[in-house]
């Protein structure tokens, strides 16, 4: 049977007393591809940080099935580093193995991870000299290199052109299927990824609801553009 790998129960959180998340509950099963979507400032990034335990909920519980499960994270604006930063794709990817010190092991794993994201041969290129899509794939490789069970991505497709966008979405879909990694991905461009996802966590109005992709397609994506609009109007 499928097991719940992430279980969030009645979680609330606010910065300096301003509520951001109120009574949020949802579960993810091993192997899920869960999209997280909703308006700016709804608390999506905050939710990821709670899952990573860099923030603590003010009430409620988050349980992650930790039997050997590792979480990797690709932060929002990962690619907004200084383009003159003197580090190679391999050096950045290797950071994902921290604190591993064994040079031979690191070199082997870096090669394998860059191959997984179709960047073989780019090991020694400076990160700033790669295209936006390639850079984003380096960050995905950095997240994959530690063989995680859960991969959290915060808007990995922002600022990426249409062609690379399709590539990255397919890549994430393959990672989810081939390596059985549970993926949670925050995105504003749900149309591109919905075919690879099986669930959607929707931050709409003042509540957070978990839907299957089919439900989301039928109820929100088609009918709900107007709803998104009203949410924009009174949110902020």
């Amino acid at each position, binding site marked *: 049977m499928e097991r719940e790998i992430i279980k969030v129960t009645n979680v609330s959180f606010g910065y300096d007393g301003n509520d951001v998340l109120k009574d949020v509950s949802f579960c993810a099963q091993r192997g899920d591809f869960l999209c997280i979507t909703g308006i700016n400032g709804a608390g999506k990034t905050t939710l990821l940080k709670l899952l990573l335990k*860099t923030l603590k909920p003010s009430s409620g519980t988050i349980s992650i099935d930790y039997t050997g499960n590792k979480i990797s*994270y690709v932060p929002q604006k990962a690619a907004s580093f200084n383009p*003159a*930063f*003197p*580090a*190679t794709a391999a050096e950045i990817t290797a950071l*994902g193995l921290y*604190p591993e010190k064994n040079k031979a092991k690191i070199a082997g794993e870096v090669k394998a991870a860059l191959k997984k994201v179709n960047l073989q041969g780019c090991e*020694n290129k400076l990160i700033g000299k790669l295209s936006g899509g390639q850079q984003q794939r380096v960050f995905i490789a950095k997240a994959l290199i530690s063989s995680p069970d859960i991969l959290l991505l915060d808007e990995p497709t922002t600022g990426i052109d249409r062609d690379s966008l399709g590539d990255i979405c397919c890549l994430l879909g393959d990672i989810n299927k081939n390596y059985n990694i549970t993926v949670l991905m925050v995105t504003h461009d749900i149309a591109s990824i919905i075919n690879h996802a099986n669930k959607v966590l929707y931050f709409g109005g003042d509540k957070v609801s978990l839907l299957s992709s089919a439900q989301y397609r039928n109820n929100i994506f088609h009918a709900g553009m107007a709803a998104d609009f009203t949410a924009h109007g009174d949110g902020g």
Partner: protein
Amino acid sequence: MRIFLYPFMQRAIIAALLISAALPLVGNIVVLRRLSPVGDALSHGSLFGVALGLCFGVNPVLGAVLATLFSAFLLEFIRGAFPKYSEISTSIIMSLGVGLAAVLSGFVKSRADFDAVLFGSVVAVSDIELVFIFLVSVSIALYIFFNLNELLYMAFDEESAAVSGVNCKRVNFIFTFLLALAVSISAKTVGALLISTLMVIPPACAMQLSKSFKGNIILSVAFGMFFALTGLLVSALFDLKPGGVISVTGVLTLIVIILIRRGRKI
């Protein structure tokens, strides 16, 4: 060339080589963290220490070490309040250092000591100072060698580094400590006003050429040593101030590198 047979000149060369390796090592990290002016800020802090030492009869080098450490930790404290606006913290420390040094300089009797610290007097390095320079340089080299991953990770993305389990607070603390020591040992040798030269120009030259983070570090040390040796040699031959010549050599080299790279692209 007879001059290189004198012990004081040999001490000067060893001191210059050690410092010109240590400053680019810390400088690399400082530059990548967008803190380039930190060398200037801290060396002005060290001026205050020197002034304090000269006023109250404490060894000026000791005064410089204490004042620089104080300035460095105050700087980190202010930087914490303005993440991503590092230059605010460096400007504040710089003005504080200059201000305090100016207030105290009125009480300093011998200008010569003060000038020595402003522009450096590498040929006046004593044995004990040389030992101190050696210990600090070796500590810096060892620390950076064994913590390269942490330093790269934090320079690239401090938040992710923390998520991956890098103890950022500890790394910042030790790095700040070593940075302050590097600045204070260099003040009397290359001169407080020229510390930034060896901290920023070698990494800047390296960034124009390097193909990796490790390459950047090695190359910047090589540039630093090259500037220092050239500076000493030229200044000995023409009887000039070594610190000044080191600085001019560095800037000229950087300009040549940039021009050559432009030339290739066109």
